[in-house]
């Protein structure tokens, strides 16, 4: 590292600038609408095409570690589903910590959209085993979910009417921060022929672009940007839309960091031979 970089570029400066940019831009935030791209619209259109009353499965495969990215996404999707009068069933393949988070999101969204528990939505449990869990519910839903998250028998839940296996769902949406999407792809799409949509953290997004042109997924929502685009499509600006101006500013800051780092590096390198 160049001496300039050593002097000016300790991580403290980077951390300080970044912290300041985030804090200040959040204090003076202004929402900016972010129009949906075709990739995001693929999920929106799939939900839009479902007949009223269709069951839709949401696999809420994330825990609080990815909450900031995926909660706004899930809320926008839930609002869209209920606006279309779909029956939403929520489960998780991620971790035991995922379902309490999903419960909070669903109940808050249900209050906002006037959806009723057990009629418009039902919460199931977390299932470990990834592919095995998908294969098991593909054969018999009740073998894995004999009761709901709140310990109610399936027969007592109107939202579960007519659902005996995974194939009974008209659409499955995997909102994930893990590789659970691979299990849905292998077990759900490949084995049982379900229609799959994907909402994932931005870190994972590029890995799943190859599934788009092969139509293995109908669309992809990547991170906060994907969530903001979905909010824009359903015309329900929320936390993702609110976060976009700050996100823009941070991206510019990081680009400037990269440029500054390179300038200091090459300036230091040029000076070294002169000094020698």
């Amino acid at each position: 590292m160049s001496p300039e970089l050593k002097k000016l570029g300790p991580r403290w400066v980077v951390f300080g600038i970044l912290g300041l940019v985030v804090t200040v831009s959040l204090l003076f935030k202004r929402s900016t609408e972010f129009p949906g791209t075709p990739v995001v619209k693929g999920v929106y259109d799939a939900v839009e095409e479902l007949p009223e009353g269709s069951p839709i499965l949401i696999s809420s495969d994330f825990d609080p570690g990815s909450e900031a990215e995926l909660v706004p996404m899930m809320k926008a999707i839930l609002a869209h589903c209920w606006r279309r009068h779909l029956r939403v069933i929520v489960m998780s393949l991620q971790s035991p910590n995922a379902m309490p988070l999903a419960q909070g999101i669903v109940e808050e969204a249900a209050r906002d959209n006037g959806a009723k528990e057990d009629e418009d939505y039902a919460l199931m449990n977390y299932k470990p085993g990834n592919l095995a869990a998908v294969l098991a519910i593909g054969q018999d839903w009740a073998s894995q979910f004999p009761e709901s998250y709140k310990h109610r028998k399936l027969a007592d839940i109107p939202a579960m009417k007519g659902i005996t296996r995974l194939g009974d769902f008209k659409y499955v949406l995997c909102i994930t921060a893990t590789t659970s999407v691979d299990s849905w792809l292998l077990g759900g799409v490949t084995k049982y022929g379900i229609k799959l949509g994907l909402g994932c953290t931005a870190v994972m997004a590029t890995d799943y672009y190859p599934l788009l042109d092969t139509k293995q997924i109908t669309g992809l929502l990547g991170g906060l940007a994907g969530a903001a685009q979905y909010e824009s499509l359903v015309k329900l600006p929320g936390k993702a839309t609110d976060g976009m101006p700050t996100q823009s500013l941070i991206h510019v800051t990081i680009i400037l960091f990269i440029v500054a780092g390179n300038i200091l590096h090459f300036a230091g390198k040029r000076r070294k031979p002169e000094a020698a």
Partner: protein
Amino acid sequence: MNLSVLTMLAQEGATPPPSVWQGHTAAVIGLWLAVGFTLAIYTFLYKDNPIFKFAEHVFVGASNGYLLWQAWHQTVKPNLVMPLWHALRAAVHHPAGPPQPNETLWLIVPAVLCLFLFLRFIPKAAWLSRWSFAFYVGASAGNMIPLQVVAYIFKPMDFHLRYGIVAHDADGHFAWLGSFNLLATLVGVIAVLIYFVFSIEHKGPVKAVARTGVIFLMIGFGASFGYTVMARQSLLIGKVQNLIDNARSEATEDAKSNAPPDNPPPNPHHATLWLLVAIIAAVVALEMAKKGREGGEVPQGAAPPQTG
């Protein structure tokens, strides 16, 4: 614990009435703990320190304790213990109720396999856990092979063979850009695959193709980096927003509207600011104490960070 309580632990019902843990005091304490532990974790930005380590270990301990109960109530009890118990009772002609499809004596197999798995804690019988692992690993392998072949190999090959390099627009006319994209994708896939074939020497035409593969890889990795930046910063935005909300004296309008009508959110009373001062003071005090222990010697620079 007596047997009647154990039996009751397995009974079903509905949600209990509001408890003290949903009350105002619990919410206030919870809010201050949440802010305090968040800031404690942020002290890692300075360096790995006892305050961060304390928060980290509380997180590890509490999340595992939580996981234990979630595991019992969400799967082990409804999927294994109760159905097996009912199946056994039915087998000895003392059914607990009408038979359910999941109440089968076949559940003895996973019960035994689970038991074997836990024998790993008993050194003399630990080898039996291999049977459980062998079943799990073998079954996963058997399930995965045909599905992987179809999903990750046949399906993309089918796409490229079906569409080739000629694309048409909605009206059925030849689409230049679409065709170029199809060609570029096909070239990219082949070039990257050739780059990863190390059993042939990369020289001559192979070198040129491999170099093309590198170009595609670099663009792909760059895009991944761009997305990764977005992911990490989104999480940071969410957390900083939360800290800002808790630096206010009153709960935000957003929090008030999102809370259930009968359970309003507590006011933070500048929790972030107070706790920030307290945690900075604690870090400084710990550093001074450490320096004191080291005989007043000035350390040669801060300890290197463990990540980043």
